[in-house]
């Protein structure tokens, strides 16, 4: 798998266009009908919407990270579910995309963890 283009960021979610679906991924299940790309403790999730889409999670990722891949067979959109300070949506053409949720370093625990909001 090769990164073709660094497309953008929606809050802590970084978005890349890639050339192919990598090996070592497992399907991501929908939660309440939604494909959640970035979870939020307060319900302000980042979700991917498209008519025909499959999302997969990398079985291995750098410490503290979650890496997802989306196979879009129709145009799609990454939305942020928050009524204020909303991160604007990103639109995608059909293709293969990678979503990486930022991590951060905890100097007291001396470990990396997913950025939580």
């Amino acid at each position: 798998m090769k990164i073709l283009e660094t497309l953008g960021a929606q809050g802590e979610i970084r978005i890349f266009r890639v050339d192919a679906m990598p090996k070592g991924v497992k399907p991501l299940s929908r939660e309440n009908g939604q494909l959640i790309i970035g979870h939020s403790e307060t319900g302000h999730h980042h979700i991917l919407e498209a008519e025909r889409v499959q999302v997969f999670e990398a079985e291995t990722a750098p410490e503290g990270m979650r890496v997802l891949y989306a196979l879009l067979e129709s145009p799609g959109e990454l939305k942020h579910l928050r009524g204020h300070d909303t991160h604007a949506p990103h639109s995608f053409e059909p293709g293969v995309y990678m979503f990486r949720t930022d991590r951060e370093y905890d100097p007291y625990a001396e470990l990396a963890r997913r950025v939580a909001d």
Partner: protein
Amino acid sequence: MSKIIREKNKAHGGITAEEKTRMDEHAKLWITRAMRTAPIEPDKIISAIEGIYAAANLKKPRIVIVPSPLVMAFAYGASAAIWYSRKNGKSDATDAATRDATRAATRDATYDATRAATHDAAYAAAYAATDDATYDATHAATYDATRAATRAAKGNAEELAALACRGLAGNFGVECARRWSNVYQGGNMWAGYDCYLTAYRDILGLELREHAAYAHWEQAAIHGGYRVMHEEFCIVSDFPEVLKVDDQNRPHCETGPSHRWRDGWSLYHWHGVKIPAEWIENKKSLDAKTALTWQNIEQRRAALEIVGWNNVLRELKARVIDEHPDPACGSLVEVQLPDLEKPSRFIRAQCGTKREFAIGVPPEIKTVTAAQAWLTGLPESQFEYPSIRT
């Protein structure tokens, strides 16, 4: 644009400029209702709720007005558990007892552009303007309170309410309280939807048979807050006596609670982000170290704003290691945190919404680009700054 049609049971073709103007005023009216802080008027809310039960062909319930959604949730839990146990002699369910008969009253008669335009003009305006301040904040806080009900008592309002519930109905009561959101309706805090429904009737001129039943629901949306509906009883919350927002209608207050109900239950928010009460009530409790290392990044950002970035940097003897000209990429800052031998490093950067965050990176990171690559989990050789940030 298609032809505008206005009939008693049909509204097609979009909305006129005059209708749009009226919808703006209509939205303002419902925003005012959502932001109400005047006390509940028992005769009006009781009449409205009795009307809802009657419209659903349910017997008249016992209606109890309580001072806050917190009391509502735990009173519901205890009451539902007691009623269930009386009827069934066991305690393994908290099913909703009633269904709203009026909620979708106008859906069948509305279509396409008219619906979309009305939605945009009325529902979206009222929803956007009120839901952070009312529904979101209250729902989240009540939900948190009942989720936390099984924790050891600490003496705060939430824990004491849980204790009272347990005293009345045991653990079954607390479990029922945790399910309050299965049977609740939002009252004035669902104003966005009622603004939308009533715009069809009051501005577009729909006259539907269902409006007679809906009128009770509408009155309950005007005259009451959250409520839980049970076949035997309905518990309805008073309005908050304090409801403070910022210029974007996000719950916010720098000197006290953003919300306070008449029993004293209070919520604290900083520009829409729920924060611990002590950050406002006892500002000395929030020091630079706490602010910079708070786990939730949104609350951390709020904490850093409350303490003030300059105070944080001064208190922690900060120095800038590297700086990118684009504030979205940020600067790499080193600070000396208490109880740590080595200095720690943070990226201080703006996100796409122009708000400033601090994110920890490993202490061996030397440049902003290396830090940003590490956050993304990519080698620096593969890392590029995103062209579009939202």
